[in-house]
């Protein structure tokens, strides 16, 4: 667990990184200059890859070799996708899927 001075540093660095993404276009392209094509390209090509990478990152501790063989994650992800394709309400899908997962790991596959 990150704590102490390292935690302060981590938060500061992430705050700077976030602020950079927001301020850079205004600093670099503020005076009517057109952004390079490469920046525009990464701006729309990166988000899809980042999001699926993050899904995999979140599931990195999944264990297929011991019961329940990752079934809780698979079922809960299915619930999230199902709810989202059905209702299209982000909050409903997120909280619904999380409740399914919590029920599975707390009661079904203890």
């Amino acid at each position, binding site marked *: *667990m*990150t704590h102490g001075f390292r*935690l302060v*540093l*981590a*938060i*500061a*660095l*992430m705050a*700077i*990184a*976030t602020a*950079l*993404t*927001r*301020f*850079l*276009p*205004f600093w670099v*392209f*503020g005076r009517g200059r057109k*952004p390079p094509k490469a*920046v*525009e*390209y*990464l*701006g*729309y*090509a*990166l*988000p*899809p*890859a980042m*999001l*699926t*990478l993050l*899904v*995999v*990152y*979140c*599931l*990195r501790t999944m264990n297929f070799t011991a019961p329940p063989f990752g079934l*809780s*994650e698979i079922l*809960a*992800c299915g619930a*999230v*996708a199902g709810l*989202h394709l059905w209702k299209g309400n*982000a*909050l409903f*899908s*997120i*909280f619904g*899927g*999380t409740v399914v*997962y*919590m029920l*599975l790991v*707390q009661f079904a596959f203890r």
Partner: protein
Amino acid sequence: MRRELWAKAFQATLPVLFGYVPLGMAFGFLMSAAGYAPYVSLSMSAFMYAGSAQYLAVTMFAQNASLLTMFAMAFFLNIRQMVYGLSLLDLYRGAGPMKPYLIFALTDEAYALLVGAELPKGEARRPYLTLITGLCQNYWVAGTALGALAGAYLHINTKGMDFMLTALFLVLAIDLMKKYKTWEPFALGAAAGILALAVGGQALMMPVALLLILAALSLFRGFFEARLKPGEGAGA
């Protein structure tokens, strides 16, 4: 006039209120459940103010990821916001002394409100931009405070609650997939993640995956550009 402007801004930001308070609460709650004092989650909501990066931070803190990984992840996760800035250059020109704050607090939702809604004309516009942007961040911080306090005082079994992060990214990916009408860049992210996990293990997964994605996007730029029609998908 002033009161009218507040009412108008509050009304415009209502959907964000209903989105930010529960998600902010969940973030604060997760941080408290992970053992962090409320002021830690509150300062993250005040100074980072980036929903998905903050959620990701909960996991990266638990794993005690390297500082460079945390910096790079926050940067690349929010890089889509560069595109927002590019399209707001004109609107923010002459935004006055609040301009730095307007840029600092430019989230997906604030952006959507600023480009999607009708803005007042004339001298009411400046304060209106500030009101919209500021109200949104206040909802996020208030939600975080509620969640952090609830997490510190309520003792319920939170096992499995961190799945919320997975669900959040999954929902964002589905929404984006609907908008992009393509699957290749999504497959790239998942494939890079699995490969990096196999090669670098849990500790090195993220930096390796980021390098793989950036390399693939640069090497096969022609291919991805043909699949992604710029303009249509820009702005997640």
